[in-house]
């Protein structure tokens, strides 16, 4: 009997030849990712009696959630983290302005095929875009890894999603992810390892695949994975920090659940307030007034996402009374967007462009809505209160739809703009 990706990748570091779903393994991750919550983890680490971290090379620490610091309290938080990084001699530290942890981990060649990334952030499954096993954990668990270098994991069952056919115009991986989350529900992949297969996935760019592995968190997945291929290896050729050994699932592996999707049947989708699985076709919610559009986040803040929005905004103006906030996911993306003229397109249209980071995604700063306002966003969550006030509504969409809606002042299909 063949093995899934999760079974193989968790067997290797646990020192076992084979493991099966339900087994508990104790593993040491290659990467332990944390962000602004590192300050709180330092406190837990000290309460555990920790003095020196188990392995400074294992850490990847990013300041992105409230970066640059919006308040003195946040600044103090950042200072604690910088002091800790310095004192412990942690080499992989990325200060404010570098970008969102999940994107930067990939750019810096730290998310590698066949390796294990545990992060104190729920979107850590994102790392699966490079063929890594990425799973979110809690802060105490992160502190425990810092202290003793290992953590227990339950070997998950797997869900195989195969996407074949051809994606229609204006349909993006965001729409595919929303469609699946809407169909399966927010717990549709609870505890599962989600593997993405099929010609549509193989044809996608790494940036597009990242939207899928990122959004798997919203169906409850433990991790999410795309098999590394020539595109992955080419991207890593001058980025990977060390040698790696990819892990591929066997073709005769056993899956708890199999889902087959014909990409040709998809259309642009919107997640409506206040849950990510409250998904409707764009046509059903078109016309809903929006006060603010937000293009960015680890889900859809990459160069291709910015390009798609810039194409819509080029030569157009935002609707009077509608704001648009653009936040590139990383400084590398920001620089490339400047070179390609996208930033100019955004500014000419009347949008504002801010420094890389999570921004208003979880209500910290850089453009939170007022009570009663409606935001259309390329983010991954639209929970009540997510952007700061529970009296506002968030609709999730792909970048082109988000930009088109900012131009029209209401939720709009890009092909219906003048």
């Amino acid at each position: 009997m063949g093995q899934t990706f999760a079974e193989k990748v968790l067997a290797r570091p646990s020192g076992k030849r084979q493991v099966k779903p339900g087994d508990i393994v104790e593993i040491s991750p290659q990467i332990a990712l944390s962000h602004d919550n590192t300050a709180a983890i330092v406190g837990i680490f000290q309460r555990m009696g920790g003095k020196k971290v188990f392995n400074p090379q294992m850490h990847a620490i990013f300041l992105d959630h409230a970066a640059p610091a919006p308040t003195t309290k946040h600044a103090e938080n950042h200072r604690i983290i910088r002091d800790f990084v310095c004192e412990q001699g942690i080499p992989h530290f990325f200060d404010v302005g570098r970008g969102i942890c999940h994107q930067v981990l990939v750019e810096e060649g730290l998310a590698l095929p066949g390796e294990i990334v545990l992060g104190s952030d729920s979107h850590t499954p994102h790392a699966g875009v490079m063929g890594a096993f990425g799973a979110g954990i809690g802060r105490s668990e992160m502190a425990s890894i810092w202290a003793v270098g290992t953590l227990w994991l339950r070997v998950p069952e797997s869900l195989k999603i195969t996407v074949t056919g051809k994606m229609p115009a204006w349909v993006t991986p965001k729409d595919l992810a929303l469609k699946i989350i809407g169909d399966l529900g927010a717990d549709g992949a609870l505890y599962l390892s989600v593997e993405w297969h099929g010609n549509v996935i193989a044809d996608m760019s790494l940036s597009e695949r990242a939207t899928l592995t990122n959004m798997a968190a919203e169906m409850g997945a433990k991790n999410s994975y795309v098999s590394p291929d020539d595109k992955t290896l080419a991207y890593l050729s001058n980025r990977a920090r060390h040698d790696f050994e990819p892990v591929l699932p066997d073709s005769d592996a056993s899956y708890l659940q199999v889902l087959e999707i014909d990409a040709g049947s998809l259309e642009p989708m919107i997640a409506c307030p206040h849950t990510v699985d409250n998904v409707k076709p764009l046509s059903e919610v078109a016309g809903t007034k929006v006060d603010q559009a937000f293009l960015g986040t680890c889900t859809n803040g990459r160069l291709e996402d910015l390009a798609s929005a810039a194409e819509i905004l080029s030569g157009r103006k935002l609707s009077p009374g509608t704001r648009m906030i653009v936040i590139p996911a990383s400084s590398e993306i920001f620089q490339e967007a400047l070179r390609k003229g996208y930033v100019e397109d955004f500014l000419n249209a009347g949008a504002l462009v801010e420094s890389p980071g999570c921004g208003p995604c979880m209500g910290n700063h850089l453009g939170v809505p007022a009570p009663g306002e409606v935001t259309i966003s390329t983010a991954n969550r639209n929970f009540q209160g997510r952007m700061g006030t529970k009296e506002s509504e968030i609709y999730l969409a792909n970048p082109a739809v988000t930009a088109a809606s900012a131009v029209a002042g209401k939720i709009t299909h890009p092909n219906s703009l003048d």
Partner: protein
Amino acid sequence: MEIIRGRSWKYGDNVNTDVIFPGKYTYTVSEPTDMPAHALEDLDPNFARGVKPGDIIVAGKNWGCGSSREQAVTCLKEGGLGAIIAESFARIYYRNCLNAALPVLICPEAVQAIHDGEQIEIDLDKGEIRTNKGIYTFNPLPEVVREIFDAGGLIAHTKKRLEALD
């Protein structure tokens, strides 16, 4: 282990961490003792005012979905909550509870049977939930998890491991 006894606070499916402990407080409210005041703030304002030690949350599917924030567990644990019974839990939330030594029980039958406000009782050793409608059983924790739980949570457990290394 003691018996957990208290009133039930019943909620629905997919209650997420943003309504259990709002994201806007994650970097501003950092003292555990300050957290219970914001527990379930955006879902049920009566909860933080009314919850008593030993009370039990009874929830539908996927309780605790969303972010990995532990404050969504701490705000309940610090407020004296005795346990959570649900049809299912989001996985990080489930781990966070075990690591905080807050009992989390998966028992869809009990969830169906229990009414909001009803007095219920949990016997962890026997694996029983006692309700007005009858007694429901749940699976015991895996051994490695029980060890963390018995140590009083992951912090105490890791502390012991570190001391053993010295």
